[in-house]
């Protein structure tokens, strides 16, 4: 397998000026070395992609470079000098900025306040809101972000927050800009805008470090690619010389099987889950749909179309009204997530950090948090049972943990996602709703999750997938509902599910694509 790596030529040093060089750099947490012996050279005017499996150490490497953590070994040479950054702000002052994989914004402050935190614009010592607002509008518009400057971040969707975070990274001119999975929650059109922005940065001589699990993006964007595996640096390659298959192989260290399982085709069974005329004030207007056992139902749409809100509304997590919600033909009253579990509905949130996991808590308690009531018949808990569950989940979902004593916040992003998936599935729901199922999941594990979803559905469960990744919708779903501005505008089935059709329905709206029964009924009520 390693021969594969040898076939590909390592990249020669780029010609432009070297900005940053890592020599033998690594990071140790306690007894565990999570990154070792990285030798990397970053040049102005290049887009340098970093790829690797979940937990390979990509984010750790980026945090090293941007001063969030100090290297345990090796040196960082920046602009010809050996450097030890005193925290991220110091690195930022010297021209290196990191756009985090996880959202790091103050929810109780507005978009503008967050954008300019720590670098407020003032005139004669007085905060200059007008100027900041103008800059914010320009930045957000350039990224196609619909968030408004004085909106509280609390009110934004994850995707909008991600955009704000990106805008924050781009607010000032930097020598090195690092994006840690910026596109994991963005839809195709936003991604395109962002990629254009990144290319413009490169053309201005900025060095861009770019992490993504979407290999097509990497292929389209990167000049050079560095591959990490299990904390080791595998090598740096010229983008032109590697295909997506090569990348995947280098990352995983083995041949990959098919990404998507075979589709099952739309089901004609009686609906397992029916929602009629659901309205979530401010977000969703009169949405009706059904999910059938044995099929994967996708929800597509642009950022802010209201997909997340539909399900948060159904589960009583935000104020909502529905004419009827039926499970297995029986009407159910759902006022809380617990009621949802009772009815067999499991929901996996898109905001794993804010709503999914207790970051300061260990893995086992996180895993069983929502399953406590059925896991334990008696009132007391039992760590043996939990640890057994954790071991099972680690095996089943291939969660890469170096120690089970870790806190959830210490897992890599992708492994957090898998833990969250395990937590949701512990409920054994018959209706599984997954919001952004592969957010931050590497290519090798994606296929695992897809086949896992396939397995669920073949057992006669219904699975609803909200995804911003068009390929995922196309590759995975038997039927796709597309939303625009809080309304369901189209229903696509089987062969009709194509990237074009989804984009068209998401941007132009209803009537653009063929309408069948449910969809027709929907429009009737709109």
């Amino acid at each position, binding site marked *: 397998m390693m021969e594969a790596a040898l076939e590909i030529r390592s990249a020669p040093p780029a010609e432009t000026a070297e900005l940053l060089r890592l020599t033998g750099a690594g990071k140790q947490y306690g007894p565990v070395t999570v990154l070792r012996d990285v030798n990397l050279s970053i040049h102005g005017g290049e887009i340098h992609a970093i790829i690797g499996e979940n937990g390979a150490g990509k984010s750790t490497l980026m945090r090293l470079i941007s001063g969030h953590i100090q290297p345990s070994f090796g040196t960082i040479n920046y602009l010809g000098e050996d450097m030890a950054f005193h925290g991220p702000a110091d690195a930022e002052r010297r021209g290196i900025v990191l756009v985090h994989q996880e959202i790091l914004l103050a929810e109780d402050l507005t978009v503008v306040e967050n954008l300019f935190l720590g670098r407020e614009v003032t005139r004669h010592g007085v905060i200059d809101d007008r100027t900041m607002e103008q800059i914010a509008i320009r930045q957000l518009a350039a990224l196609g972000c619909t968030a408004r400057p004085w909106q509280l971040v609390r009110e934004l969707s994850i995707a909008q927050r991600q955009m704000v975070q990106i805008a924050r990274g781009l607010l000032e001119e930097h020598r090195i800009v690092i994006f840690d999975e910026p596109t994991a929650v963005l839809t195709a059109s936003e991604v395109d805008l962002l990629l254009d922005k990144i290319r413009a940065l490169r053309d201005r001589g900025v060095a861009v470090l770019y992490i993504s699990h979407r290999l097509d993006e990497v292929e389209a964007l990167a000049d050079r690619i560095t591959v990490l595996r299990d904390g080791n640096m595998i090598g740096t390659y010229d983008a032109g010389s590697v295909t997506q298959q090569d990348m995947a192989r280098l990352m995983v260290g083995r041949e990959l099987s098919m990404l998507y399982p075979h589709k099952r085709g739309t089901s004609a069974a009686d609906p397992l889950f029916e929602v009629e005329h659901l309205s979530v004030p401010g977000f969703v207007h009169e949405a009706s749909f059904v999910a059938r056992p044995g099929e994967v139902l996708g929800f597509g749409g642009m950022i802010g179309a209201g997909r997340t809100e539909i399900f948060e509304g159904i589960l009583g997590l935000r104020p909502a009204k529905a004419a009827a919600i039926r499970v297995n033909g029986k009407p159910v009253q759902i006022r809380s997530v617990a009621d949802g*579990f009772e009815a067999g509905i499991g929901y996996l949130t898109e905001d794993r950090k804010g709503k999914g996991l207790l970051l300061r808590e260990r893995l086992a308690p996180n895993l069983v948090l929502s399953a406590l009531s059925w896991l334990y018949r008696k009132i007391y808990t039992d760590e043996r049972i939990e640890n057994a569950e954790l071991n099972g989940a680690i095996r089943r979902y291939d969660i890469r943990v170096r*120690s089970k004593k870790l806190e959830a916040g210490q897992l890599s992003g992708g492994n957090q996602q898998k833990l969250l998936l395990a937590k949701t599935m512990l409920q054994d729901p018959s209706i599984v709703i997954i919001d952004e199922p592969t957010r931050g999941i590497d290519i090798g594990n994606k296929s695992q999750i897809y086949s896992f979803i396939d397995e669920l559905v073949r057992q006669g469960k219904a699975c609803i997938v909200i995804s911003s990744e068009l390929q995922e919708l196309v590759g995975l779903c038997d039927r796709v509902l597309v939303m625009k501005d809080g309304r369901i505008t189209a229903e696509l089935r089987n062969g009709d599910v194509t990237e074009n059709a989804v984009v068209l329905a998401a941007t132009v709206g209803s009537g653009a694509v063929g309408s069948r029964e449910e969809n027709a009924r929907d429009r009737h009520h709109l």
Partner: protein
Amino acid sequence: MTDTTSELVSKESVFQRINWVDLGPFIALAVLVVVGYLINPDFLSPTNITNVVTRATFIGIIAVGATFVISSGCLDLSVGSMAAFAAGAMILFMNWLVPTWGANAIPAGIVFVLCVGALCGLVNGLVVTLGKIEPFIVTLGTMGVYRAFITFMSNGGSIPIDRSLREPFRPLYFGTVMGIPIPVLVCAAVAIVGSFILYKTKFGRRCAAVGANVEVARFSGISVGRIRTLAFVIQGICVAIAAICYVPRLGAATPTTGLLWELQVITAVVIGGTALRGGKGHIWGSLAGAVILEFIANLMVLSDFISEYLVAAVQGVIIIVAMLIQRFSRRS
């Protein structure tokens, strides 16, 4: 690799199962004891230690309840006046029963006061969760309410226990079992039950989850309101238990009973290692905190060189130092 992991785990879990592994407050306590001994060797005399530890039990018992409330991300300022009110209500109830029931009035009074405590806690909890108001304000309000009740019940004076009940009731504070004062045993029992509930039950798990991150708790199907209300009820029951031990001590409830206990209780909990913003609670730490506070007060009287005017200053400084020791020892 999987092998090494599982090995690590088995070692850890034994280590983790001792949930009072956080030794910080105990180290602070030890330092204090040594300092106390150096200042005045009488400090370590058995009588003194017994006195102080017994005195610490009121705050300790209430602090066990407060650990739940604080762990769930709330705060209860009403505990002091609730204790006074519960004690007053208990005495009035027992005095009213005693002509007919005789000494049986005592167990009846105990059951009654437990109900009163639970009810007071329930009121706090419901107003906080249903009204969606900051617990600080709610319990500040009920603090005034319960305090006013005891003042009203006692006409501003005191509510003494019936003379015939005094003697049979006295052992509950002054009695010992195998040399250990009964309040200390009660306090230990409360702490054991409390730590079982907090560390070994579903409710305890949920309590800490709610305090650590409300959103995650909500998304995990936990009824935040119910958990918090229950935490307040537990707090109320603990206050009632403290009142039961308190009444035999001085044989009366007055409007000054339990004054400023709330501050002491919260301080004990925080010195014990529970964060005020919520999250994991440390019951044994809270107990250590309560003992630390009482030791400090004791030291002030036992030491000769502090002007009575400056006692509060020295106490304040020692509390801060105890907290520093606790933090410091925890970090390393």
